[in-house]
């Protein structure tokens, strides 16, 4: 039987997968919960979703 590798977090940040991931800047993170910007996004996302729902409700043979 093969040896099981016991999971342990990497001791240094450079050894973690997360080190190679894209990370948001402070500005991007701020926008995510900025009230005026999110009100705009609320409208935009709803419109996008309504469009997809409309496109998907066309099933008739």
């Amino acid at each position: 039987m093969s040896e099981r590798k016991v999971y342990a977090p990497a001791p240094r940040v450079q050894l973690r997968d997360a080190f190679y991931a894209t990370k948001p800047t402070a500005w991007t993170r701020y926008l995510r919960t900025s009230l005026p910007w999110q009100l705009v996004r609320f409208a935009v996302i709803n419109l996008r979703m309504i469009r997809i729902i409309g496109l998907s409700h066309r099933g008739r043979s």
Partner: protein
Amino acid sequence: MAATRVVVLGAGVAGHTAASFLRKWLGSEAEVTVVSPKPDYNWIPSNIWVGVGLLQPRQVLFPLAPVYARHGIAFRQARAVALHPEGEGDATQPFVEVESTLPGEGGLRSRVPYDFLINATGPKLAFEATPGLGPEGHSFSVCTAEHAHQAAGAFEEQVQRMKRGEHKRFLVGVGHGLCTCQGAAFEYLVNLEFELRARGVRDKAEIVYLTNEYELGDFGMDGIHIRRGGYVTPSKIFTESLFAERGIEWITRAHVQGLEPGRATYEFLDGTEGEIAFDMAMLLPPFRGVGLKALDRAGVDITDRLFAPSGFMKVDADYGAKPYEAWRAADWPRTYQSPAYPNLFAAGIAFAPPHPVSKPRQSPKGTSITPAPPRTGMPSAMIGKAVAHSIVDMIGGRPGPTHTASMAEMGAACVASAGANPFTGTAASITVFPIVPDFERYPDYGRDVRRTFGEIGLAGHWIKIVLHHLFLHKARMRPLWSLIPE
């Protein structure tokens, strides 16, 4: 003339949607009967919030009987056991054999005759596929409100211990190489992380995501590509980014072999093995069909003819075995009619998908480590409605199904909660078109990148709250319910 009898097995997203529209569209000359083993409807997506203690089960459940009584739908609290699509002996009336789940009736069996039948029995939560998996083993689940409530209790206990200074490791993900529903595991993971921050104990917690996905962000859909910031970017990048930002570690390409108290072992796609110790684990089970049997008139078992080996029902899909490269969007079902019996349909998770969407992969030991196809709520409801429409038309004299709802022709809108708070919460709002990639129509990515979209923010959380209330309103069949889209 006797009333036409339409029977719906299952009162989940697909079955309840089908039954509601059947009742709305059919006149009083038709009977609509729902057979379901539980007395309540569960708005499953909000179980995530039950699992971290933000909602109580009663906020995601409501009793079905009064709703059905008000709208003229007959309700049998029972579990379907066997289909008799040809009747029995000389009696050609098709029927379903059901077993009562009413307290005091002790599994009493009876027959429910039908002229049209919709199998919308959803998934069997196959915890037994992995030794030690599940609430009766050593991990928790959020698949039912009851499971989620148990998970919330365990979570609270860990929080209290962390408040006393202890360090804890949380393991969240999927508990088998063939699981689907990574979206739900993802939501529980990020909500758990958010709540630990809100409770002031994040620094005492290590959080690890364990998945069968080849890359993060696969979600059983082979990932999605989103146009953003001047690039077309795969969902792997966004998912890794969110995890890295929130200090969540991840283990991919893993099939959980078994759980013991506080420990999980797993096999990787490259054949190596690993193990992890944990203080609390929430790992979703793989799904199978609920195990309905089928018998012909002579009592001969014809289950293999009606159902795939997974227990899901065969419908109008192309189930021919072919290599991955030869799979096509057109293989996916459109009408959900059984090829064996024209008055039999499957809706929602209950139908057998023709093949996985994510690339199938096996370890050198032959273990399949591939997410099963996604089975989300929106297509389940749309399939339920399309099948209901076809049956209404067939009762009206049309020779075959009139409505279609192929997952390769429809899109999906999905909002994945990433933390629940009206000011600091966020959710990922995602649209994909189509759900099942169509490389003939969209050769580059299999999907239309102009319509496939994703964004994380507070607006998504507001939408998730609106959806919670809208869909519960719709399921309760309150005024104007039928105007709310699926």
